[in-house]
């Protein structure tokens, strides 16, 4: 187990800057997630920790010790890849035992460790098979086993669930959380799926175009997004952004003009009805309604901007008609129009 410190780490490939001046510390034993759209630099961050890439500038430290000069094999990190990257010419047992074999462990020792990890992952019966004979979920478990078998200091996961179907993804998500609790290894997770990030992590860093937009516990990101990017990225469906001039009775901090403000409100906080007695509710034309079971998401068009809100399944506004979108003033997020930064 190790704490990982990024000290002003930048990474450029030729002219392209993939990561810009990353400064943060991942605590020992933490489940830490980098989340962001594709191309934001999150996978590069993992490669830098693993030593597969070298930073262009800045330093990475494990427990205060610089590791930049160390090859991947000397860092004692393990990684699960998006494609799992199992060795096709080896059996499951050989795949899992490979890291131990390379470290010169005795055959007996390897067998015991492989059996132990296979038992924990529920793949004891698959040990003699080849990777191509396994289903996606089983391959995933083998990849996890290969990473966990040597109890690394740092456990890296690069989009490990993205190749699984929706149901299996939920199952493996729970499994990952359980394994982290069981092994307690510092885990760095990379995903583009904010929901995964929220569900799994102790802390999340939202990356955009090589920069950290915000770093904190999931709920902090959700309740107090630092800017419009984080606000729009975290939470599903994504937050509505409205011109402040459309929202009546808006209380602004002093020195802030109305036309400098963007108002954010989460769809869950917007109640849609056909007739509301809230005098501050906004009228919008209904574009479509998406039932999800308990709720119906209603998409409306307000002065050329989309607004999404929640309606009861028993009272769904008809598309094409006008509905009332109401929200409490204390649920609003205010952002500066020019910089996107949070005001209140």
């Amino acid at each position, binding site marked *: 187990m190790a704490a990982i410190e990024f000290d002003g780490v930048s990474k450029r490939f030729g002219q392209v800057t993939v990561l810009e001046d990353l400064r943060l510390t991942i605590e020992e034993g933490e489940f830490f997630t980098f989340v962001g759209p594709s191309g934001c630099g999150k996978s590069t961050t993992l490669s830098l920790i693993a030593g597969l890439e070298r930073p262009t500038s800045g330093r990475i430290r494990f427990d205060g010790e610089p590791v930049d000069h160390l090859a991947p094999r000397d860092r004692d990190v393990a*990684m699960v890849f998006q494609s799992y990257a199992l060795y096709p010419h080896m059996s499951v047992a050989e795949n899992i035992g490979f890291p131990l074999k390379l470290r010169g462990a005795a055959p007996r020792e390897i067998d015991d460790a492989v059996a132990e990890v296979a038992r924990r992952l529920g793949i004891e019966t698959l040990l003699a098979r080849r990777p191509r004979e396994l289903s996606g979920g089983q391959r995933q478990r083998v990849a996890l086993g290969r990473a966990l078998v040597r109890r690394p200091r740092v456990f890296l996961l690069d989009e490990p669930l993205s190749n699984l179907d929706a149901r299996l993804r939920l199952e493996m998500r729970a499994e990952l959380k359980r394994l982290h609790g069981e092994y307690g290894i510092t885990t760095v997770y990379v995903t583009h799926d904010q929901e995964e990030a929220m569900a799994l992590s102790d802390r999340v860093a939202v990356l955009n175009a090589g920069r950290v937009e915000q770093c904190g516990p999931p709920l902090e990101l959700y309740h107090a997004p630092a800017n419009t990017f984080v606000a729009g990225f975290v939470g599903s469906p994504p937050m509505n952004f409205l011109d402040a001039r459309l929202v009546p009775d808006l209380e602004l901090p002093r020195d802030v003009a109305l036309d400098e403000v963007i108002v954010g409100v989460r769809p869950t906080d917007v109640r849609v009805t056909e007739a509301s007695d809230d005098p501050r509710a906004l009228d919008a034309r209904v574009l479509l309604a998406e039932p999800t079971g308990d709720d119906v998401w209603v998409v409306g068009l307000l002065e050329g901007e989309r607004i999404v809100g929640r309606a009861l399944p028993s009272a769904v506004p008809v598309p094409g008609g006008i509905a009332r979108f109401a929200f409490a003033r204390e649920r609003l997020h205010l952002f500066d129009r020019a910089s996107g930064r949070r005001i209140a």
Partner: protein
Amino acid sequence: MRRAATYLGVLVVAAYCLAPLAWQLVTSVRTPAELTTLPPLLPTRITIEHYAAVFTGHPFPRMLLNSFVVAGGATAIALAFGAAAAFALTKMRARGFGAILALVLATSMFPPISIVSPLYLLINALGLRDTLAALILTYAGFTLPLAIWVLTSFLRELPDELYSAARVDGCTPRQALVRVILPLAAPGLVATGLLVFIFAWNEFLFALTFTATERSRTVPVGIALFPGLHEVPWGEIAAASLLVTVPVFVLVLRFQRRIVEGLTAGAVKG
């Protein structure tokens, strides 16, 4: 109808390719009296005297051994260096990937006849004239561009994440090559190895130039030296020519499936 046309086409091509071989076969079992009759129709009597003469009148086993050592040695060297170079180019992200490949290809553009003289001087200066080493080094050098190109295109198809996984799991680059990459590249290695082996097995010009005695003579040169002062022993030449194709024939049969795999690798996603 279309199927019939296909078979007819195959038949024509096969006949075109195999006719010289058939002629050789017929020649090799004819009695000396019938040897020069044209057209080369079926012999009236079958004899094995030419085959016997190949082994009794000439140092044929020695030549075969030389050929095996030379072709085997060249193949081993070309594969070892070719695989290492292809690995560095594709997986270790060597700089100037395209330029290096182009340069490698450029070196194989020289026709052998244009460099045989300077090479001869070089071999002589190194004291390697009339040694098997001279041929092994020359053939390995000549086939290395081919080996690098075929293996590069082959290794490029292997996912980079496999190499990353191997490194994180604890491999040095060399261990990753030997334990992970090469086993997966086996079809490519077999195909490349066979091409190199066949080139070295059949090569004539350098073998003729760099060898002087039967100590280092390979089969193609040996056969070319069969003709004596007063006669050309067509029967023996035919018999020996057929005999030297046998090893190549066996190798190709043995690895046929692998070669097809190797040559078509990456064409269709596995």
